[in-house]
Protein backbone atom coordinates (compact mmCIF):
# COMPACT_ATOMS: atom_id res chain seq x y z
CA UNK A 1 0.00 0.00 0.00
CA UNK A 2 1.34 3.40 -0.96
CA UNK A 3 -0.06 6.85 -0.28
CA UNK A 4 1.22 10.03 -1.89
CA UNK A 5 0.08 13.61 -2.36
CA UNK A 6 0.65 14.72 -5.90
CA UNK A 7 -0.50 17.95 -7.54
CA UNK A 8 -3.61 18.51 -5.44
CA UNK A 9 -4.35 14.82 -5.56
CA UNK A 10 -4.27 12.12 -2.95
CA UNK A 11 -3.12 8.96 -4.70
CA UNK A 12 -3.59 5.62 -3.00
CA UNK A 13 -2.12 2.47 -4.48
CA UNK A 14 -3.23 -0.87 -3.07
CA UNK A 15 -1.78 -3.84 -4.92
CA UNK A 16 -2.64 -3.34 -8.58
CA UNK A 17 -5.34 -0.75 -7.84
CA UNK A 18 -4.94 3.00 -7.99
CA UNK A 19 -7.35 5.47 -6.42
CA UNK A 20 -7.18 9.24 -6.81
CA UNK A 21 -8.97 11.93 -4.87
CA UNK A 22 -8.74 15.62 -5.55
CA UNK A 23 -7.81 17.80 -2.64
CA UNK A 24 -9.39 21.10 -3.55
CA UNK A 25 -9.47 23.45 -0.56
CA UNK A 26 -11.27 26.07 -2.65
CA UNK A 27 -14.32 23.80 -2.62
CA UNK A 28 -14.18 23.07 1.09
CA UNK A 29 -15.98 26.20 2.29
CA UNK A 30 -19.56 25.07 1.61
CA UNK A 31 -19.21 21.51 3.04
CA UNK A 32 -17.65 22.99 6.20
CA UNK A 33 -20.53 25.44 6.54
CA UNK A 34 -23.19 22.74 6.03
CA UNK A 35 -21.56 20.25 8.40
CA UNK A 36 -21.06 23.07 10.91
CA UNK A 37 -24.77 23.92 10.77
CA UNK A 38 -25.69 20.26 11.30
CA UNK A 39 -23.40 20.07 14.37
CA UNK A 40 -24.47 23.38 15.86
CA UNK A 41 -28.20 22.74 15.35
CA UNK A 42 -28.57 20.03 18.06
CA UNK A 43 -26.36 22.01 20.44
CA UNK A 44 -28.61 25.05 20.07
CA UNK A 45 -31.68 22.81 20.41
CA UNK A 46 -30.20 21.34 23.62
CA UNK A 47 -29.97 24.77 25.23
CA UNK A 48 -33.04 26.44 23.71
CA UNK A 49 -35.61 23.77 22.90
CA UNK A 50 -34.53 20.24 23.99
CA UNK A 51 -37.76 18.59 22.78
CA UNK A 52 -36.50 19.17 19.24
CA UNK A 53 -33.59 16.72 19.76
CA UNK A 54 -35.60 13.53 19.03
CA UNK A 55 -36.80 15.12 15.77
CA UNK A 56 -33.23 15.87 14.75
CA UNK A 57 -32.20 12.31 15.65
CA UNK A 58 -35.13 11.01 13.61
CA UNK A 59 -34.09 13.18 10.65
CA UNK A 60 -30.46 12.05 10.85
CA UNK A 61 -31.44 8.39 10.89
CA UNK A 62 -33.89 8.79 8.01
CA UNK A 63 -31.11 10.41 5.99
CA UNK A 64 -28.68 7.67 7.03
CA UNK A 65 -31.14 5.06 5.71
CA UNK A 66 -31.80 6.91 2.46
CA UNK A 67 -28.10 7.35 1.59
CA UNK A 68 -27.16 3.63 1.35
CA UNK A 69 -30.56 2.98 -0.24
CA UNK A 70 -29.51 5.36 -3.02
CA UNK A 71 -26.28 3.40 -3.49
CA UNK A 72 -28.25 0.16 -3.58
CA UNK A 73 -30.63 1.60 -6.19
CA UNK A 74 -27.85 2.73 -8.52
CA UNK A 75 -25.63 -0.32 -8.04
CA UNK A 76 -28.33 -2.91 -8.61
CA UNK A 77 -30.25 -0.86 -11.18
CA UNK A 78 -33.44 -1.66 -9.28
CA UNK A 79 -35.57 0.00 -6.62
CA UNK A 80 -35.58 -1.80 -3.28
CA UNK A 81 -38.88 -1.24 -1.48
CA UNK A 82 -37.92 -3.10 1.66
CA UNK A 83 -34.88 -1.47 3.28
CA UNK A 84 -36.68 -1.72 6.62
CA UNK A 85 -36.10 -5.48 6.53
CA UNK A 86 -32.47 -4.84 7.46
CA UNK A 87 -33.47 -2.41 10.18
CA UNK A 88 -35.60 -5.23 11.56
CA UNK A 89 -32.78 -7.77 11.24
CA UNK A 90 -30.20 -5.45 12.81
CA UNK A 91 -32.54 -4.20 15.51
CA UNK A 92 -33.68 -7.66 16.59
CA UNK A 93 -30.12 -9.02 16.55
CA UNK A 94 -28.96 -6.19 18.80
CA UNK A 95 -32.02 -6.30 21.06
CA UNK A 96 -31.98 -10.08 21.53
CA UNK A 97 -28.25 -10.13 22.31
CA UNK A 98 -28.60 -7.22 24.70
CA UNK A 99 -31.62 -8.63 26.56
CA UNK A 100 -30.70 -12.32 26.73
CA UNK A 101 -26.92 -12.08 26.93
CA UNK A 102 -26.59 -8.68 28.58
CA UNK A 103 -24.22 -7.42 25.91
CA UNK A 104 -23.52 -3.68 25.71
CA UNK A 105 -24.03 -1.73 22.42
CA UNK A 106 -20.36 -1.94 21.47
CA UNK A 107 -20.58 -5.76 21.48
CA UNK A 108 -23.99 -6.01 19.82
CA UNK A 109 -22.76 -3.84 16.92
CA UNK A 110 -20.52 -6.54 15.38
CA UNK A 111 -23.33 -9.06 15.87
CA UNK A 112 -25.67 -6.72 13.96
CA UNK A 113 -23.10 -6.30 11.19
CA UNK A 114 -22.61 -10.05 10.82
CA UNK A 115 -26.37 -10.73 10.91
CA UNK A 116 -27.11 -8.14 8.22
CA UNK A 117 -24.13 -9.31 6.18
CA UNK A 118 -25.52 -12.84 6.16
CA UNK A 119 -29.04 -11.66 5.28
CA UNK A 120 -27.64 -9.28 2.67
CA UNK A 121 -25.56 -12.00 1.03
CA UNK A 122 -28.45 -14.45 1.09
CA UNK A 123 -30.81 -11.95 -0.52
CA UNK A 124 -28.37 -10.30 -2.91
CA UNK A 125 -28.89 -12.91 -5.69
CA UNK A 126 -32.39 -11.45 -5.98
CA UNK A 127 -30.87 -8.41 -7.67
CA UNK A 128 -29.46 -10.74 -10.33
CA UNK A 129 -32.41 -13.11 -10.74
CA UNK A 130 -35.40 -10.81 -10.38
CA UNK A 131 -35.80 -7.73 -12.50
CA UNK A 132 -37.91 -4.60 -12.43
CA UNK A 133 -41.31 -4.98 -10.85
CA UNK A 134 -40.65 -8.52 -9.58
CA UNK A 135 -37.64 -7.37 -7.61
CA UNK A 136 -39.59 -4.44 -6.21
CA UNK A 137 -42.49 -6.67 -5.18
CA UNK A 138 -40.24 -9.28 -3.62
CA UNK A 139 -38.32 -6.69 -1.61
CA UNK A 140 -41.63 -5.19 -0.56
CA UNK A 141 -42.76 -8.58 0.65
CA UNK A 142 -39.76 -9.53 2.81
CA UNK A 143 -40.32 -7.04 5.66
CA UNK A 144 -44.00 -8.03 5.80
CA UNK A 145 -43.05 -11.72 6.00
CA UNK A 146 -40.55 -10.83 8.73
CA UNK A 147 -43.31 -8.95 10.57
CA UNK A 148 -45.52 -12.04 10.41
CA UNK A 149 -42.64 -14.14 11.74
CA UNK A 150 -42.30 -11.81 14.73
CA UNK A 151 -45.96 -12.51 15.51
CA UNK A 152 -45.74 -16.26 14.91
CA UNK A 153 -42.61 -16.66 17.07
CA UNK A 154 -43.83 -14.18 19.61
CA UNK A 155 -41.91 -15.94 22.44
CA UNK A 156 -38.69 -14.81 20.82
CA UNK A 157 -39.55 -11.55 19.07
CA UNK A 158 -42.47 -10.35 21.18
CA UNK A 159 -44.21 -9.31 18.00
CA UNK A 160 -47.21 -7.71 19.68
CA UNK A 161 -45.48 -5.74 22.41
CA UNK A 162 -41.84 -5.52 21.30
CA UNK A 163 -38.65 -6.36 23.13
CA UNK A 164 -37.94 -4.28 26.23
CA UNK A 165 -34.86 -3.71 28.34
CA UNK A 166 -32.23 -3.15 25.67
CA UNK A 167 -29.16 -1.50 27.16
CA UNK A 168 -29.01 2.24 26.39
CA UNK A 169 -26.71 3.64 23.76
CA UNK A 170 -25.20 6.23 26.08
CA UNK A 171 -25.63 6.24 29.83
CA UNK A 172 -24.17 8.02 32.81
CA UNK A 173 -25.14 11.63 32.11
CA UNK A 174 -28.41 13.44 32.59
CA UNK A 175 -31.31 12.66 30.23
CA UNK A 176 -30.76 15.86 28.23
CA UNK A 177 -27.01 15.33 27.87
CA UNK A 178 -27.53 11.73 26.81
CA UNK A 179 -30.04 12.90 24.21
CA UNK A 180 -27.52 15.39 22.86
CA UNK A 181 -24.80 12.74 22.71
CA UNK A 182 -27.13 10.32 20.92
CA UNK A 183 -28.07 13.11 18.51
CA UNK A 184 -24.40 13.79 17.75
CA UNK A 185 -23.81 10.05 17.32
CA UNK A 186 -26.68 9.85 14.82
CA UNK A 187 -25.18 12.82 12.99
CA UNK A 188 -21.78 11.14 13.02
CA UNK A 189 -23.24 7.96 11.50
CA UNK A 190 -25.03 10.00 8.85
CA UNK A 191 -21.91 11.97 7.95
CA UNK A 192 -19.78 8.82 7.80
CA UNK A 193 -22.33 7.21 5.47
CA UNK A 194 -22.39 10.33 3.35
CA UNK A 195 -18.60 10.39 3.13
CA UNK A 196 -18.36 6.70 2.21
CA UNK A 197 -21.09 6.81 -0.44
CA UNK A 198 -19.83 10.10 -1.84
CA UNK A 199 -16.34 8.64 -2.27
CA UNK A 200 -17.80 5.53 -3.92
CA UNK A 201 -19.90 7.66 -6.27
CA UNK A 202 -16.73 9.45 -7.38
CA UNK A 203 -14.68 6.30 -7.89
CA UNK A 204 -14.34 4.00 -10.86
CA UNK A 205 -16.67 1.60 -9.07
CA UNK A 206 -19.39 4.19 -9.71
CA UNK A 207 -18.69 4.01 -13.45
CA UNK A 208 -19.56 0.33 -13.41
CA UNK A 209 -22.67 0.98 -11.32
CA UNK A 210 -23.83 3.70 -13.71
CA UNK A 211 -23.30 1.37 -16.66
CA UNK A 212 -25.32 -1.37 -14.92
CA UNK A 213 -28.02 1.14 -14.13
CA UNK A 214 -28.26 2.09 -17.81
CA UNK A 215 -27.85 -1.27 -19.56
CA UNK A 216 -26.70 -4.40 -17.75
CA UNK A 217 -26.19 -6.46 -20.86
CA UNK A 218 -23.98 -3.92 -22.58
CA UNK A 219 -22.08 -3.31 -19.34
CA UNK A 220 -21.27 -7.01 -19.12
CA UNK A 221 -20.25 -7.10 -22.78
CA UNK A 222 -17.82 -4.25 -22.01
CA UNK A 223 -16.13 -6.26 -19.29
CA UNK A 224 -18.08 -5.30 -16.15
CA UNK A 225 -18.61 -8.19 -13.75
CA UNK A 226 -22.26 -7.32 -13.22
CA UNK A 227 -22.99 -10.03 -10.65
CA UNK A 228 -20.09 -9.02 -8.43
CA UNK A 229 -20.95 -5.32 -8.55
CA UNK A 230 -24.60 -6.05 -7.80
CA UNK A 231 -23.82 -8.30 -4.85
CA UNK A 232 -21.47 -5.70 -3.37
CA UNK A 233 -23.97 -2.90 -4.02
CA UNK A 234 -26.70 -4.89 -2.34
CA UNK A 235 -24.87 -6.34 0.63
CA UNK A 236 -22.86 -3.39 1.94
CA UNK A 237 -25.80 -0.94 1.92
CA UNK A 238 -27.88 -3.68 3.60
CA UNK A 239 -25.32 -3.79 6.42
CA UNK A 240 -25.26 0.01 6.61
CA UNK A 241 -29.05 0.11 6.94
CA UNK A 242 -28.97 -2.74 9.47
CA UNK A 243 -26.65 -0.74 11.72
CA UNK A 244 -29.44 1.82 12.04
CA UNK A 245 -31.65 -0.94 13.45
CA UNK A 246 -28.97 -1.42 16.10
CA UNK A 247 -29.12 2.34 16.72
CA UNK A 248 -32.92 2.33 17.11
CA UNK A 249 -32.87 -0.66 19.48
CA UNK A 250 -30.29 0.86 21.81
CA UNK A 251 -31.58 4.42 21.52
CA UNK A 252 -35.17 3.64 22.54
CA UNK A 253 -34.22 0.70 24.79
CA UNK A 254 -36.91 -1.28 23.03
CA UNK A 255 -37.42 -2.79 19.61
CA UNK A 256 -40.61 -3.88 17.97
CA UNK A 257 -41.13 -5.01 14.42
CA UNK A 258 -44.51 -3.34 14.17
CA UNK A 259 -42.82 0.08 14.37
CA UNK A 260 -40.24 -0.40 11.63
CA UNK A 261 -41.34 -3.26 9.39
CA UNK A 262 -44.71 -2.02 8.05
CA UNK A 263 -45.04 -0.05 4.84
CA UNK A 264 -45.63 3.25 6.63
CA UNK A 265 -42.01 3.39 7.80
CA UNK A 266 -40.72 2.46 4.36
CA UNK A 267 -42.92 5.18 2.87
CA UNK A 268 -41.19 7.76 5.04
CA UNK A 269 -37.74 6.58 3.91
CA UNK A 270 -38.88 6.57 0.31
CA UNK A 271 -40.23 10.08 0.69
CA UNK A 272 -36.84 11.24 1.99
CA UNK A 273 -35.28 9.96 -1.23
CA UNK A 274 -38.02 11.34 -3.45
CA UNK A 275 -38.36 14.75 -1.81
CA UNK A 276 -34.59 15.12 -1.59
CA UNK A 277 -34.12 14.03 -5.19
CA UNK A 278 -33.63 10.54 -6.56
CA UNK A 279 -30.22 9.10 -5.66
CA UNK A 280 -28.99 12.48 -4.45
CA UNK A 281 -26.76 12.01 -1.43
CA UNK A 282 -26.93 15.65 -0.35
CA UNK A 283 -30.58 15.86 -1.34
CA UNK A 284 -31.32 13.18 1.25
CA UNK A 285 -30.28 15.58 4.02
CA UNK A 286 -32.74 18.18 2.76
CA UNK A 287 -35.42 15.50 2.37
CA UNK A 288 -34.78 13.90 5.79
CA UNK A 289 -34.92 17.15 7.75
CA UNK A 290 -37.90 18.36 5.76
CA UNK A 291 -39.90 15.18 6.46
CA UNK A 292 -38.98 15.05 10.16
CA UNK A 293 -39.80 18.73 10.74
CA UNK A 294 -43.01 18.53 8.69
CA UNK A 295 -44.14 15.54 10.76
CA UNK A 296 -43.47 17.41 14.00
CA UNK A 297 -45.11 20.62 12.78
CA UNK A 298 -48.25 18.80 11.68
CA UNK A 299 -48.58 17.09 15.06
CA UNK A 300 -48.65 20.53 16.67
CA UNK A 301 -50.88 22.15 14.05
CA UNK A 302 -53.48 19.52 13.22
CA UNK A 303 -52.98 16.98 16.02
CA UNK A 304 -54.63 13.63 15.27
CA UNK A 305 -55.33 14.61 11.67
CA UNK A 306 -51.59 14.66 10.94
CA UNK A 307 -51.71 10.99 9.87
CA UNK A 308 -54.04 12.08 7.05
CA UNK A 309 -52.61 15.51 6.24
CA UNK A 310 -48.97 14.32 6.23
CA UNK A 311 -49.30 11.88 3.31
CA UNK A 312 -51.52 14.35 1.40
CA UNK A 313 -48.86 17.07 1.63
CA UNK A 314 -46.18 14.59 0.59
CA UNK A 315 -48.23 13.49 -2.40
CA UNK A 316 -48.75 17.10 -3.49
CA UNK A 317 -45.02 17.75 -3.13
CA UNK A 318 -44.19 14.62 -5.09
CA UNK A 319 -46.48 15.64 -7.92
CA UNK A 320 -45.31 19.24 -8.02
CA UNK A 321 -41.59 18.58 -7.45
CA UNK A 322 -40.79 15.62 -9.63
CA UNK A 323 -37.05 16.21 -9.17
CA UNK A 324 -37.38 16.74 -5.42
CA UNK A 325 -36.44 19.77 -3.35
CA UNK A 326 -32.80 19.32 -4.21
CA UNK A 327 -33.86 19.30 -7.86
CA UNK A 328 -34.76 22.98 -7.54
CA UNK A 329 -31.15 23.70 -6.64
CA UNK A 330 -29.82 21.36 -9.31
CA UNK A 331 -31.83 23.12 -11.99
CA UNK A 332 -29.82 26.23 -11.23
CA UNK A 333 -26.53 24.40 -10.84
CA UNK A 334 -26.86 21.24 -12.87
CA UNK A 335 -24.73 18.26 -11.91
CA UNK A 336 -24.92 14.61 -12.76
CA UNK A 337 -25.24 12.15 -9.90
CA UNK A 338 -21.99 10.80 -11.23
CA UNK A 339 -18.93 12.96 -11.79
CA UNK A 340 -18.70 14.76 -15.09
CA UNK A 341 -15.09 14.45 -16.11
CA UNK A 342 -13.58 17.32 -17.99
CA UNK A 343 -10.54 16.51 -20.05
CA UNK A 344 -8.57 18.99 -22.09
CA UNK A 345 -6.71 18.20 -25.25
Amino acid at each position, binding site marked *: MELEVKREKL*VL*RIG*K*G*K*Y*EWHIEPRYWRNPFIYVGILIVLPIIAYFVYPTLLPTIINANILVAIAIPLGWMTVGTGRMNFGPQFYIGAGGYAAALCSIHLGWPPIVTLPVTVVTCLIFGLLMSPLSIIAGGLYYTLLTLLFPLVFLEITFIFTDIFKGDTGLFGVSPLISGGSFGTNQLMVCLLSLFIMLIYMFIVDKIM*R*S*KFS*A*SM*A*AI*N*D*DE*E*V*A*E*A*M*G*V*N*VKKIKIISFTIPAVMIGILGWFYAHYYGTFSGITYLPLSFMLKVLMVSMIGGRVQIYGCVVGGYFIAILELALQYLVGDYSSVVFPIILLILLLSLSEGLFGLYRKRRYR*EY*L*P*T*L*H*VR*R
Partner: protein
Amino acid sequence: MAVNDVSFSINEGETLGLMGPNGAGKTTLVNLITGKYFTDAGDIQFMGHDITKLPPYKRCKLGISRTYQIPRPFPELTALMSVAVSAIYGKDRENQSLEDAATEATHYLEFCGLFSKRNVLGKDLTLYELRGLELARALATTPKLIFVDEVMAGLNPSEATKAVRLLERAKEEFGVTILWIEHVMAALMKAAQRVVVLHYGKKIAEGLPQEIANDPYVIECYLGSCHA
Protein backbone atom coordinates in the same frame (compact mmCIF):
# COMPACT_ATOMS: atom_id res chain seq x y z
CA MET B 1 -33.14 -23.63 -33.70
CA ALA B 2 -31.61 -20.24 -34.58
CA VAL B 3 -28.07 -21.49 -35.27
CA ASN B 4 -27.25 -25.10 -36.04
CA ASP B 5 -24.05 -26.89 -36.99
CA VAL B 6 -22.09 -23.74 -37.86
CA SER B 7 -18.34 -24.08 -37.91
CA PHE B 8 -15.81 -21.55 -39.15
CA SER B 9 -12.58 -19.92 -38.12
CA ILE B 10 -11.21 -16.41 -38.36
CA ASN B 11 -7.54 -15.61 -38.77
CA GLU B 12 -5.70 -12.89 -36.88
CA GLY B 13 -5.80 -9.53 -38.67
CA GLU B 14 -8.48 -10.67 -41.08
CA THR B 15 -11.82 -9.07 -41.91
CA LEU B 16 -14.40 -11.79 -42.17
CA GLY B 17 -17.78 -10.94 -43.60
CA LEU B 18 -20.85 -12.64 -42.24
CA MET B 19 -23.90 -12.39 -44.43
CA GLY B 20 -27.27 -13.94 -44.85
CA PRO B 21 -30.90 -12.99 -45.41
CA ASN B 22 -33.00 -11.58 -42.58
CA GLY B 23 -33.47 -14.14 -39.82
CA ALA B 24 -30.49 -16.21 -40.96
CA GLY B 25 -29.05 -16.22 -37.42
CA LYS B 26 -26.15 -13.80 -37.88
CA THR B 27 -26.77 -11.76 -34.75
CA THR B 28 -27.60 -14.91 -32.78
CA LEU B 29 -24.22 -16.30 -33.81
CA VAL B 30 -22.51 -13.13 -32.54
CA ASN B 31 -24.52 -13.37 -29.32
CA LEU B 32 -23.28 -16.94 -28.91
CA ILE B 33 -19.66 -15.98 -29.43
CA THR B 34 -19.80 -12.91 -27.20
CA GLY B 35 -21.55 -14.85 -24.44
CA LYS B 36 -25.04 -13.37 -24.40
CA TYR B 37 -26.37 -16.84 -25.15
CA PHE B 38 -24.75 -20.17 -24.39
CA THR B 39 -24.49 -23.00 -26.88
CA ASP B 40 -26.35 -26.29 -26.39
CA ALA B 41 -23.60 -28.22 -28.13
CA GLY B 42 -20.20 -27.65 -29.68
CA ASP B 43 -17.42 -25.37 -28.53
CA ILE B 44 -15.99 -21.92 -29.20
CA GLN B 45 -12.22 -21.49 -29.18
CA PHE B 46 -10.51 -18.11 -28.98
CA MET B 47 -6.72 -17.85 -29.17
CA GLY B 48 -6.25 -21.25 -27.58
CA HIS B 49 -8.88 -20.71 -24.87
CA ASP B 50 -12.10 -22.63 -24.71
CA ILE B 51 -14.59 -19.81 -24.11
CA THR B 52 -17.77 -21.86 -24.55
CA LYS B 53 -18.81 -21.56 -20.91
CA LEU B 54 -17.25 -18.20 -20.06
CA PRO B 55 -19.51 -15.28 -19.07
CA PRO B 56 -19.51 -12.24 -21.41
CA TYR B 57 -17.25 -10.08 -19.22
CA LYS B 58 -14.52 -12.72 -19.20
CA ARG B 59 -14.72 -13.07 -22.98
CA CYS B 60 -14.37 -9.30 -23.19
CA LYS B 61 -11.26 -9.37 -21.01
CA LEU B 62 -9.80 -12.03 -23.30
CA GLY B 63 -10.20 -9.61 -26.21
CA ILE B 64 -13.65 -10.04 -27.73
CA SER B 65 -15.73 -6.92 -28.17
CA ARG B 66 -18.78 -5.92 -30.15
CA THR B 67 -21.05 -3.20 -31.47
CA TYR B 68 -24.81 -3.52 -31.76
CA GLN B 69 -27.08 -3.50 -34.78
CA ILE B 70 -29.38 -1.03 -33.05
CA PRO B 71 -27.01 1.19 -31.04
CA ARG B 72 -27.21 0.62 -27.32
CA PRO B 73 -25.51 3.56 -25.64
CA PHE B 74 -25.54 4.20 -21.90
CA PRO B 75 -28.25 6.87 -22.18
CA GLU B 76 -27.52 8.67 -18.91
CA LEU B 77 -23.75 8.63 -19.25
CA THR B 78 -21.67 11.10 -21.19
CA ALA B 79 -19.74 9.80 -24.19
CA LEU B 80 -16.54 10.14 -22.17
CA MET B 81 -17.84 8.11 -19.23
CA SER B 82 -19.29 5.45 -21.55
CA VAL B 83 -15.90 4.87 -23.15
CA ALA B 84 -14.13 5.17 -19.79
CA VAL B 85 -16.21 2.23 -18.48
CA SER B 86 -14.80 0.08 -21.30
CA ALA B 87 -11.29 1.39 -20.66
CA ILE B 88 -11.53 0.45 -16.98
CA TYR B 89 -13.19 -2.94 -17.26
CA GLY B 90 -12.30 -4.13 -20.76
CA LYS B 91 -9.00 -5.42 -19.49
CA ASP B 92 -7.48 -5.74 -16.03
CA ARG B 93 -5.05 -2.88 -15.96
CA GLU B 94 -2.66 -2.14 -13.16
CA ASN B 95 -2.59 1.27 -11.53
CA GLN B 96 -5.43 2.81 -13.46
CA SER B 97 -7.65 5.36 -11.78
CA LEU B 98 -10.94 6.75 -13.10
CA GLU B 99 -9.11 9.80 -14.40
CA ASP B 100 -6.49 7.70 -16.17
CA ALA B 101 -9.33 5.79 -17.82
CA ALA B 102 -11.00 9.06 -18.85
CA THR B 103 -7.77 10.27 -20.42
CA GLU B 104 -7.49 7.00 -22.30
CA ALA B 105 -11.11 7.26 -23.36
CA THR B 106 -10.45 10.63 -25.01
CA HIS B 107 -7.98 8.91 -27.32
CA TYR B 108 -10.68 6.58 -28.64
CA LEU B 109 -13.25 9.35 -28.82
CA GLU B 110 -10.86 11.46 -30.84
CA PHE B 111 -10.17 8.51 -33.13
CA CYS B 112 -13.91 8.19 -33.81
CA GLY B 113 -14.34 11.94 -34.25
CA LEU B 114 -16.36 12.39 -31.09
CA PHE B 115 -13.98 14.37 -28.91
CA SER B 116 -16.15 17.48 -29.14
CA LYS B 117 -19.14 15.40 -27.97
CA ARG B 118 -17.35 13.99 -24.92
CA ASN B 119 -19.67 15.67 -22.43
CA VAL B 120 -22.88 14.91 -24.32
CA LEU B 121 -25.16 12.25 -22.86
CA GLY B 122 -25.58 9.02 -24.83
CA LYS B 123 -29.29 9.69 -25.33
CA ASP B 124 -28.56 13.01 -27.04
CA LEU B 125 -26.24 11.70 -29.77
CA THR B 126 -27.28 11.21 -33.41
CA LEU B 127 -27.31 7.76 -35.02
CA TYR B 128 -23.99 8.32 -36.77
CA GLU B 129 -22.43 9.56 -33.54
CA LEU B 130 -23.82 6.54 -31.73
CA ARG B 131 -22.16 4.24 -34.25
CA GLY B 132 -18.90 6.06 -33.56
CA LEU B 133 -19.46 5.83 -29.81
CA GLU B 134 -20.10 2.09 -30.05
CA LEU B 135 -16.86 1.64 -31.96
CA ALA B 136 -14.94 3.82 -29.48
CA ARG B 137 -16.43 1.82 -26.62
CA ALA B 138 -15.47 -1.46 -28.27
CA LEU B 139 -11.93 -0.26 -29.06
CA ALA B 140 -11.41 0.98 -25.50
CA THR B 141 -11.60 -2.60 -24.27
CA THR B 142 -8.39 -3.17 -26.32
CA PRO B 143 -9.93 -6.07 -28.25
CA LYS B 144 -8.29 -8.55 -30.53
CA LEU B 145 -11.57 -9.38 -32.26
CA ILE B 146 -14.46 -6.99 -32.86
CA PHE B 147 -17.91 -7.98 -34.02
CA VAL B 148 -19.38 -5.20 -36.08
CA ASP B 149 -23.12 -5.64 -36.50
CA GLU B 150 -24.55 -3.80 -39.50
CA VAL B 151 -22.60 -0.62 -39.04
CA MET B 152 -24.15 0.97 -42.12
CA ALA B 153 -27.78 0.42 -41.15
CA GLY B 154 -29.71 3.67 -41.03
CA LEU B 155 -26.84 5.84 -42.23
CA ASN B 156 -26.92 7.99 -45.37
CA PRO B 157 -24.36 7.14 -48.11
CA SER B 158 -21.80 9.73 -46.99
CA GLU B 159 -22.05 8.66 -43.34
CA ALA B 160 -21.84 5.01 -44.37
CA THR B 161 -18.65 5.68 -46.34
CA LYS B 162 -17.16 7.48 -43.35
CA ALA B 163 -18.14 4.58 -41.07
CA VAL B 164 -16.46 2.06 -43.36
CA ARG B 165 -13.31 4.18 -43.53
CA LEU B 166 -13.31 4.39 -39.76
CA LEU B 167 -13.43 0.62 -39.51
CA GLU B 168 -10.56 0.28 -41.96
CA ARG B 169 -8.50 2.77 -39.94
CA ALA B 170 -9.33 0.94 -36.72
CA LYS B 171 -8.06 -2.26 -38.22
CA GLU B 172 -4.90 -0.55 -39.40
CA GLU B 173 -4.13 1.41 -36.23
CA PHE B 174 -5.19 -1.04 -33.56
CA GLY B 175 -4.47 -4.28 -35.42
CA VAL B 176 -7.87 -5.73 -34.63
CA THR B 177 -9.53 -8.64 -36.36
CA ILE B 178 -13.03 -7.82 -37.58
CA LEU B 179 -16.06 -10.00 -38.03
CA TRP B 180 -18.43 -7.83 -39.98
CA ILE B 181 -22.12 -8.55 -40.35
CA GLU B 182 -23.57 -6.55 -43.19
CA HIS B 183 -26.49 -6.40 -45.58
CA VAL B 184 -24.81 -3.93 -47.94
CA MET B 185 -23.02 -6.45 -50.13
CA ALA B 186 -20.94 -3.93 -52.06
CA ALA B 187 -19.20 -2.75 -48.88
CA LEU B 188 -18.62 -6.25 -47.63
CA MET B 189 -17.25 -7.48 -50.96
CA LYS B 190 -14.72 -4.65 -50.89
CA ALA B 191 -13.64 -4.85 -47.27
CA ALA B 192 -13.77 -8.54 -46.39
CA GLN B 193 -11.05 -11.05 -47.19
CA ARG B 194 -13.42 -13.96 -46.72
CA VAL B 195 -17.17 -14.27 -46.41
CA VAL B 196 -19.33 -16.77 -44.54
CA VAL B 197 -22.98 -17.07 -45.53
CA LEU B 198 -25.72 -18.26 -43.21
CA HIS B 199 -29.21 -19.31 -44.14
CA TYR B 200 -31.83 -20.54 -41.67
CA GLY B 201 -29.12 -20.89 -39.04
CA LYS B 202 -26.84 -23.05 -41.19
CA LYS B 203 -23.64 -22.22 -42.97
CA ILE B 204 -24.28 -22.54 -46.69
CA ALA B 205 -21.11 -21.05 -48.12
CA GLU B 206 -17.64 -19.84 -47.16
CA GLY B 207 -14.95 -18.40 -49.38
CA LEU B 208 -13.54 -15.38 -51.15
CA PRO B 209 -16.01 -12.55 -51.76
CA GLN B 210 -15.96 -13.07 -55.52
CA GLU B 211 -16.65 -16.79 -55.16
CA ILE B 212 -19.56 -16.06 -52.84
CA ALA B 213 -20.99 -13.46 -55.21
CA ASN B 214 -21.08 -16.06 -57.99
CA ASP B 215 -22.33 -18.95 -55.87
CA PRO B 216 -25.70 -20.00 -57.35
CA TYR B 217 -27.05 -21.30 -54.03
CA VAL B 218 -26.25 -17.99 -52.27
CA ILE B 219 -27.97 -16.08 -55.09
CA GLU B 220 -30.96 -18.38 -54.81
CA CYS B 221 -31.19 -17.83 -51.07
CA TYR B 222 -31.06 -14.06 -51.50
CA LEU B 223 -32.99 -13.51 -54.69
CA GLY B 224 -35.02 -16.66 -55.30
CA SER B 225 -34.54 -19.63 -57.63
CA CYS B 226 -35.34 -17.67 -60.84
CA HIS B 227 -32.11 -15.61 -60.40
CA ALA B 228 -29.79 -18.50 -59.61
